[in-house]
């Protein structure tokens, strides 16, 4: 599907990216103002990856997410107010305030969870793929993780299981060039992380992670392959986080120039150029998908949604300490949120 040519898709992609951006800017601001606690990992600058990837998925498909998971959650269709409520430690949050940013997930939309453990979601994704396959289902699992995760044993073991069992999993690596502070150049002895894929006998491809269309194209191929029984794939999306790793980051390990050069490659601005025909590369014969006012509409929609979410969430009751020990164990006969039985 051509996100840049179809007005509906273009609007969806643009609105999603703006929503992620505005949501995280709001969070950043609230955190700075002391309205939020804990820590935050923002994906500002990386919005094209979850947007392009999740648009390749259908209802019922699963994702596993990361510590930097707001974008995945939003792109997979979560409600902003329940997300914001979670960050504000409200009883109405997705996790009733128990999880916070690193565990936010809308299980109803197939999000099996953000994860505070680097690479923790990778074998979980393989397991969800195994469940699908054993039930004879046609769902696909997209597992998001960062470049740093690729050196974890969990990643290795999870990818191998998916590979040998031909599981319907797409491994999407958000290569933003750094673990916390260690660059991929120092943490890997290979030029592209996609080279790792070969060792498991699965396709590996590197793509511009700041271009939702490019991400969408390769993930769509990989999803089709997975859905039709062709097994897993590895997609490396090259992108960059504008903000520090988390709140304690002083950016000592990278230069201002480097950050600036990536800000100039803003995935949202580039996509706006592409869809409005402002980008030089656009063939003049193809009519632009969106007008300037369409674009403005998307921006406003995103901004308003986020504002509304903050309003709703702020008014909600705080997480209740009286029920703290409630959800440690599921009661007998508890429904399995992630799927159907038998």
């Amino acid at each position: 599907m051509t996100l840049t040519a179809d007005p509906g898709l273009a609007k969806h992609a643009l609105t999603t990216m703006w929503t992620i951006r505005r949501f995280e800017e709001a969070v950043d601001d609230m955190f700075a103002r002391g309205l939020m606690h804990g820590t935050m990992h923002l994906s500002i600058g990386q919005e094209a990856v979850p947007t392009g990837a999740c648009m390749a998925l259908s209802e019922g498909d699963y994702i596993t997410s990361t510590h930097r998971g707001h974008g995945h959650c939003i792109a997979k269709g979560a409600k902003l107010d329940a997300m914001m409520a979670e960050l504000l430690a409200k009883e109405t949050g997705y996790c009733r305030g128990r999880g916070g940013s690193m565990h936010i997930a809308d299980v109803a939309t197939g999000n099996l969870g953000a994860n505070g453990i680097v690479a923790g979601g990778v074998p979980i994704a393989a397991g969800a793929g195994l469940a699908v396959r054993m039930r004879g289902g046609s769902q696909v699992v997209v597992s998001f993780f960062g470049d740093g995760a690729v050196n974890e044993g969990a990643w290795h073991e999870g990818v191998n299981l998916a590979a040998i069992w031909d599981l319907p999993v797409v491994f999407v690596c958000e290569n933003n060039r750094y673990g916390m502070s260690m660059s991929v150049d120092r943490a890997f002895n290979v030029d592209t992380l996609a080279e790792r894929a070969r060792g498991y006998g699965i396709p590996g491809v590197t793509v511009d992670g700041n271009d939702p269309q490019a991400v969408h194209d390769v993930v769509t191929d990989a999803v089709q392959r997975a859905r039709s029984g062709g097994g897993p794939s590895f997609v490396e999306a090259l992108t960059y986080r504008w903000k520090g790793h988390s709140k304690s980051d002083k950016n000592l390990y990278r230069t201002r120039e480097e950050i600036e050069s990536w800000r100039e490659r803003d995935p949202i601005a580039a996509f706006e150029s592409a869809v409005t025909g402002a980008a030089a590369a656009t063939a003049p014969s193809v009519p632009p998908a969106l007008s300037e006012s369409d674009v403005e509409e998307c921006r406003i929609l995103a901004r308003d949604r986020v504002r509304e979410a903050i309003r709703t969430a702020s008014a909600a009751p705080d997480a209740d300490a009286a029920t703290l020990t409630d959800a440690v164990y599921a009661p007998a006969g508890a429904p399995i949120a992630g799927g159907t039985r038998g």
Partner: protein
Amino acid sequence: MTTTSDVGTGAVTAAGTEPVTGGAAAGGTAPAVAEPRTLTYSEAVREAMAQAMTADESVFLFGEDVGTYGGAFGVSGDLVHRFGTERVRDTPISELGIVGAAVGAGLAGMRPIVEIQFSDFTAQAMDQIANQAAKIHFMLGGAATVPMVLRAPGGSGTGAAAQHSQSLEAWFAHVPGLKVVMPSTAADAKGLLLSAIDDPNPVIVLEHKLLYKQSGPVPEDPVRVPLGETAVRRTGADVTIVATGVMVPRALEAAERLATDGVSAAVLDPRTLRPLDDQTIVDSVAATGRALLVQEAPRTGGFMSEIAARIVESPAFGRLQAPVSRLCGLDVPIPYAPQLEQAAVPQVDDIVAKAGELVRRW
């Protein structure tokens, strides 16, 4: 020996359990069914898995060499021929990955049973066990559950040395969100496993290598033994012996010998460490006034310290006629040499001696 306990010397009967009067390691909480056959502990585990897989399509077994090989200890045996290679699935040697896959499969609606070949190798998988499986339900505010069973054999006595002989139940019992089961009889091996498979939470089932070949009566029907009920394996008036795993039959043998010496020992088997039915233990200790806590695991930080702490925090504290005593594995890795291996963990003689001393000295 002593008979002056002010709560009388009558039989100690656990709430929710049927006291077993014979000395054998039989029993359990199964409602009375037709005279059960005798199975080995490992056959009982296999039967539980087979019945669960027959009843519920979402149950499946996977792990290293559980297929054609039949499992390192032969527990899965012929299951692959009965249920096929999809539902009795060999895995590569990658414990973290397969436990993670169990978490994912559980989240996505299956009921996986994952076998870890030796419980020592749970060390490889602790992140998925303790940080993922145990916490996901809570971290997601209850929005998802992780129904899965992790079975693994623990314990020493096979000459397999330090990396293949540990008793690691204390690690798991310390993790909120996990349930932890240690069956000591064939009937419990089946009944507790069935309950574990039913449970919507992650359950760690620690089997014992030395028990695999022990036989006992096992109901043919898929009779559940509820999680969280301490079994009173033997009633007694002078001392309460609490034991887990292979220490249960040893404690029962010790109790027989103590009886010939005039010492009446109750033997309690918690069976589930988490949730722990401490009430039955506390009641028994309140009645006998003495507690001997026997575990195979090294003493320091073992689960019996938890039971000791609960006893002294309970009303039984006021009834104690002797210090609460532990008899544990030594604080050493399990050695290879047979005579050293024997010396590293409690034997029947040790239990007899220690229980006798408790009763006679106090």
